[in-house]
């Protein structure tokens, strides 16, 4: 059997970084092929070259034995290559059918198109009403729009970039069912992910990238996840560990927090209750856009929440971020550049951003720049932030290094309560392990830690108790130990309106 897509020595360099160095592999028809690697390993650049978005510096590709060098995505689509991006490109104010028609070269009549959408969605178990507004759909449903848009082109190769990051575990199962069915019909799937268990359950072959090079290939079903992680990272990772501690007094108490969103696209918080004790890590899971940002803003003090936020028995709902920091309630938001740190300011200046009060970095209203520089250096040293020094602008750091700086800046201030949103998002595996360990050590020293994250594995690994945020409502917390993925998925709200269409064989497995 000849390979559907074969890639030979693809190289692409950007100023200062080689994104892909002589990458070669082949995808067979009907194969689910995983492209595995850390952030920055070069997966995205590679698929962008296959999809015609980026031109390779060197190397060749062939599709079905013929030379293949798409100049633009349209050429790639014409050749039978389709791609579902991590970030959707849909218009919220248009219907599903209208969105799909916009992406087509020659859209059929609206009525015919709606029928075709219904046919495809039924065939592949992806229920979708062509008449609904995209703005009303959940993230999982929006992804279905993108997938159906691709399937209408009858692709021979479907590329999926991190498709499960926005899905609940139940939705992931449905997606996998669809992908398996497609593969059985002969469509090849190039599946990009860094989630090892998913790859083990779905993929036939895996190509592992590290720093732009192919470092290994393997058959995921035959190796352990730990083995693949080592290949991906290049060293073995220690799981974070901690001694068992008895939770102490309640430090943070949120009582009936109800909040209207500041923007029309925000999520309202509905009667959120939570308590966190000294020495405890509370994990809050949830698919993006279910109120995480709003919850963090209410806890940090960016949005006032009178009477709803209590710190060590005192109502802090009315006071602003700086006053809350003085009392020991510290936060690290998800967005590093622009929210947790000012992009064009140096690390020294960014150290002052949150540490001014607790580290005494001002005297009589004047900033103590020498002290700030010393503190920035402390953070850099303690958290292994790779940077030439504290005078470098924040935007010059890689995402992972800046994240280490942001988390380190808060932890070194010795918080009573630390709230972090997506602490390891976009951070490479070894840095992520360091950050998790630092959070656990902080809790062990008697602080209360709240971790808001979409990475369920991470939450189950470090949390004492786990609860889920779903459409602005927070579930009852449960002990994290012994919680199964299925239970977690149900806490997250399950699969949106999908229960009745779960195929029979899925239940039998």
């Amino acid at each position, binding site marked *: 059997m000849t390979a559907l897509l074969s890639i030979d020595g693809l190289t692409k360099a*950007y*100023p200062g970084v080689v994104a892909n160095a002589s990458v070669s592999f082949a995808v067979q028809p009907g194969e689910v092929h995983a492209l595995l690697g850390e952030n920055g390993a070069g997966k995205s650049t590679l698929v*962008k070259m296959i999809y015609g*978005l*980026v*031109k390779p510096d060197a190397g060749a590709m062939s599709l079905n034995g013929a030379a293949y060098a798409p100049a633009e995505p349209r050429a790639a689509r014409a050749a039978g290559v389709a791609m579902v991006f991590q970030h959707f490109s849909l218009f919220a104010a248009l219907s599903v059918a209208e969105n799909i028609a916009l992406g087509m070269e020659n859209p059929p009549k609206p009525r015919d198109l709606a029928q075709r959408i219904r046919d495809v969605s039924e065939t592949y178990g992806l229920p979708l009403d062509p008449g609904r507004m995209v703005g009303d759909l959940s993230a999982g449903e929006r992804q279905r729009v993108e997938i159906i848009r691709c399937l209408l082109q009858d692709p021979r190769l479907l590329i999926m970039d991190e498709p499960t990051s926005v899905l609940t575990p139940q939705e992931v199962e449905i997606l996998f069912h669809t992908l398996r069915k497609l593969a059985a019909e002969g469509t090849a799937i190039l599946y990009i992910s860094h989630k090892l268990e998913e790859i083990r359950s779905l993929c036939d072959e895996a190509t592992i990238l590290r720093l732009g090079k192919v470092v290994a290939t393997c058959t995921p079903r035959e190796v352990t996840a730990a083995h693949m992680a080592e290949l991906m990272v290049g060293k073995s990772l220690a799981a974070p560990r901690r001694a068992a501690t008895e939770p102490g007094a309640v430090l943070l108490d949120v009582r009936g927090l109800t909040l209207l969103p500041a923007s029309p696209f925000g999520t309202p918080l509905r009667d959120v209750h939570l308590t966190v004790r000294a020495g405890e890590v509370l994990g809050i899971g949830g698919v993006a856009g279910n109120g995480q940002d709003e919850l963090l803003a209410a806890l*940090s*003090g*960016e949005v006032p929440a009178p009477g709803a936020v209590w710190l060590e028995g005192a109502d802090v709902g009315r006071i*602003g*971020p*700086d*006053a809350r*920091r003085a009392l020991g309630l510290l*936060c690290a*938001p998800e*967005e590093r550049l*622009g*929210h*947790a*740190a*000012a*992009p*064009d*300011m140096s690390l020294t*200046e960014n150290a*002052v*951003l*949150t540490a*001014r009060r607790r580290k005494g970095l*001002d005297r009589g*209203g*004047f*900033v103590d*720049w020498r002290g700030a520089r010393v503190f920035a250096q402390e953070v850099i040293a303690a958290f292994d932030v790779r940077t030439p020094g504290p005078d*470098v*602008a924040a*935007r*010059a750091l890689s995402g992972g290094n800046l994240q280490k700086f942001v988390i380190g800046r808060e932890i070194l201030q010795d918080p009573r309560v630390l709230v972090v949103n997506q602490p390891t998002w976009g951070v490479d595996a070894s840095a992520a392990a360091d950050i998790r360990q630092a959070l656990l050590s902080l809790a062990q020293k008697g602080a209360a830690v709240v971790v808001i994250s979409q990475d369920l594995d991470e939450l189950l690994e470090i949390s004492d108790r786990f609860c889920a945020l779903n459409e602005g409502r927070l579930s009852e917390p449960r002990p994290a130990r012994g919680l199964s993925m299925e239970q977690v998925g149900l806490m997250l709200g399950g699969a949106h309106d999908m229960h009745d269409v779960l195929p029979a064989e899925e239940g039998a497995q």
Partner: protein
Amino acid sequence: MIRLIKRPTPSRGWIVATPVLAVIVTMIAGGIMFALLGKDPFEAIRIIFLDPLFDDRFAAYSRPQLLVKAGPLILIAIGLSLGFRAGIWNIGAEGQYIIGAICGAGFGLAFYPSENVLIFPGMVMAGALGGWAWAMIPGILKTRFRTNEILVSLLLVYVAEAILASAATNWLRNPDGAGFPGSRNLSRHAGTANPELLANTGMHWGVVAAFIAVIAAYVLLNKHVLGYQIKLAGQAPRAARFAGVNPTRLVLLCLGVSGALAGMAGLFEVSGPAGQISIDFNVGYGFTAIIVAFLGRLHPVGILLAGLLMALTYIGGELAQLMMGIPASAIQAFQGMLLFFLLALDVLSNYQIKFGREAVT
């Protein structure tokens, strides 16, 4: 194909070099314009930039004029730069300048003919308060009703001009002035005069205030928490809120300070160089100060230099009109080129320019 690549950190070298380069490119482009008008470009550039300072015939008159013109420009631009740094766009300094002048002059004239030494300080205070109050209108409208401060502050300039016309022809008109518009002459009355402090330097209290403002702004921006918060709010508004900066307070503070400084500048002008409230005593310093603020990179020392340079082009421009018959509009175009080239060359400090082809990414 020319490509722009964003620098990881803004180039410090280019930040300093672009204003100098902009002046040079303006000289070249302006020279071409003068040549097209049939004037000798080299002579025109020399008259604009060198003769006011070094020519024996003009220097005695024009050297003091340098400080007289630069003083209000610097004072206003320093105030504006604080707001511009924080992303608060006060475009109406001209209006605050006028209202400050009217309030300060009104205060002084109310005590006429007393020559009490406290009157002049009182006038300065009244001028600052007037400018502050005029700037509070866009400030409060912005913080309460989310109006756009650019539009409101700009439109209030025309309101201020209407008030000025009414003051000069009506309620501040000189009772002994035989019905001519314009107030009593403040600069010729001991109680209200803002005199030249050192003979033949052009140095008056407004210039002193401008220098103090430069130093104060430098300290504020580099050493004080408030200056840090101003910069933070301008660069990353969300991070500023996260850091605990109160946006409402910052808007009112920045607009208030720039209004007060513009009002003071107006008072110093009307009690010194201009001499009296007249229908057109204002000559657009409030608008030119916007150019000065940007030409000086919103940096206090830069504004000091930019103010002097701008004053020079004013004086030299007048001289060129006089000596070579270059039309006034060509001089204005020349000044406009300066801001244009500065903003265009700004790209260099944030981007690297590369030549050659590259795939679209």
